[in-house]
């Protein structure tokens, strides 16, 4: 990847030739929409959010500076914070490993060299491009305890299915199913990784007498670890922002069993209009995600294999 262009050593404005100066000016003009967007929609809001997190403000009137009060209250005496954090963590621990395994499995299936595989690849990918609201509604109906498809099938084989979204013990599994239906999104990326593995590695493994499972274990999996690493980080950031599925399917219930962190932020900001408190909540979540991401990065030398690396 080429992140940084080869670039002539930085010259001061005076040292530049007139044509270089013109080019530089043109450059600033071309990127100016992004600079405006960065200042107005990114840097400004990040700064504002940080400052707001030390205030109490309900949008009308002026923000009132309250120092660390928001943070102290969140961390010491806010049962909703604890509950939403529990739900989000619990779901992440459930979703991340399962979605990684399913994503890999679907990618392996997608990589079969068979006629008409393109149709199947498309099929597996379609749920991922569907609007999450539509996916959520279908699953809410499939998981209807009485008339839903899943419990009908379960009844057919003699099992009385649970109440899914109506039962705090199973509601998160309902959300999980909606999430896993979209696993084609990560499978496509794993598939690209699989297709990038040089064929000679498999040939060598075959000569050594490795069967399909051993080839997967000793060639595919190690060669895929950089892709898995990338996907785990992306999914990690995504899963902590779960919102639409829970908002539409359960509204956070029953008994707050699907009360995701983003739902809490949404409630604080747009239902009770506590902008300062919501900002503090957002920063705490960001710091948690950052900490976990750093942990994953620190763990990478132990399990991610880079071919170009000298061991």
């Amino acid at each position, binding site marked *: 990847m080429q992140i940084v*262009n080869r670039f002539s050593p930085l010259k001061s404005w005076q040292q530049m030739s007139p044509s270089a100066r013109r080019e530089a000016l043109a450059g600033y003009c071309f990127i100016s929409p*992004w600079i405006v967007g960065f200042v107005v929609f990114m840097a*400004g809001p990040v700064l504002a959010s940080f400052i707001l997190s030390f205030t109490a403000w309900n949008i009308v009137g002026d923000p009132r500076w309250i120092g660390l009060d928001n943070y102290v209250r969140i961390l010491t005496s806010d049962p909703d914070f604890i509950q939403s954090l529990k739900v989000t963590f619990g779901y992440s621990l459930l979703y991340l490993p399962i979605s990684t395994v399913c994503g890999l499995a679907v990618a392996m299936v997608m990589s079969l060299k068979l006629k008409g595989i393109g149709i199947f690849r498309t099929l597996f990918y379609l749920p991922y*491009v569907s*609007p999450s609201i539509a996916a959520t509604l279908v699953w809410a*109906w*499939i998981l209807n305890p009485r008339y839903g*498809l899943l419990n009908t099938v379960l009844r057919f084989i003699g099992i009385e299915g649970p109440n899914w979204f109506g039962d705090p013990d199973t509601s998160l599994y309902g959300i999980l199913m909606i999430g896993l239906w979209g696993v084609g999104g990560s499978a496509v990326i794993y598939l690209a990784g699989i297709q990038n593995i040089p064929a000679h590695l498999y040939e060598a493994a075959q000569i050594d007498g490795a069967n399909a499972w051993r080839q997967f274990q000793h060639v595919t999996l190690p060669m895929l670890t950089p892709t898995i690493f990338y996907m785990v980080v992306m999914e990690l950031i995504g899963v902590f922002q779960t919102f639409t599925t829970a908002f*539409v399917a359960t509204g956070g219930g029953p008994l707050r069993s699907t009360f995701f962190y983003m739902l809490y932020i949404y409630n604080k900001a747009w239902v009770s209009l506590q902008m300062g408190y919501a900002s503090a909540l957002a920063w705490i979540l960001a710091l948690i995600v950052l900490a976990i991401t750093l942990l994953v990065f620190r763990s990478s030398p132990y399990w991610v294999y880079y071919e170009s690396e000298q061991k």
Partner: protein
Amino acid sequence: METDRTLTALAASRATIRWGKIRRLISALGGYLVLIGVGVLFVTPFYWMIVTALKSESQLFALPPTWIPAPAQFQNFARVFQEVPFGRFIINSGFLVVANVIGELISTTLIAYGFARLRFPGRNVLFLILLATLMIPGQITLVPRFILFAKLGWVNTYLPLIVPAFTGSPFLIFMVRQYMLTIPRDLDEAATIDGATRLQILRYIIVPICMPVMVLVAVFTFVNVWNDFMGPLIYLNDPEMFTVSLGLSFFRGTRDTSWHLLMAGSLLAMIPPVVLFFFAQRRLLGGIASVSIKG
């Protein structure tokens, strides 16, 4: 003797060839079985959605459920448009999609060209900042952005959902810039010698070569905007202005048991991204992969 041995060897090799053929056939068969098994898991929700959308209200709550509704109630789709202003929702979503696609195409082209081709002090630092913004979680900027738009009086207008597209999304800028870097500079230089201005080079040389990545930008933007739920939820209050996604959840709130109509509506909402994906499939799958792997 010699010929005998050759013959047996020949027969043996024929047998292995035949055996190999059979083995390949078996493994292909196994492959298709797995494909179909996994396919059923992915397709069943779509099937259930279509079937439910064609049921009458009484069939909806029949036990055991009917697998093929007869007669199929195609008027359910018409009823969706009568019960809620679904046509209006589609127009609203369509408008937002078009505005966002135009915005992203213009802005990402200009910005990516600046980063890929022009030399100016601070370029690398600025580009690293652009990449860093990809890591900033959205929830941080959500509240202040809302406050900003509220102070501008833009809440309950489409402006908060359109204007940011004209400043370029960092991910798309990155994608287009990476693509532009692969175009040989000789082309630009030749055009410069012929007296072309930078905008002309961009318009007549770079953009035509970048068409594949432009299609990707358009498709990504289309799907993101069409599927977006939280943006419209936060910024739009007036049901007349709702998008398809928001309208569906609003519909659900009013008619909690009309699952046949909800499924018909969901099906309609799925059509644009699914159709678009079908047409752009090859480019899209390749593009997503190349961005995430090489990027």
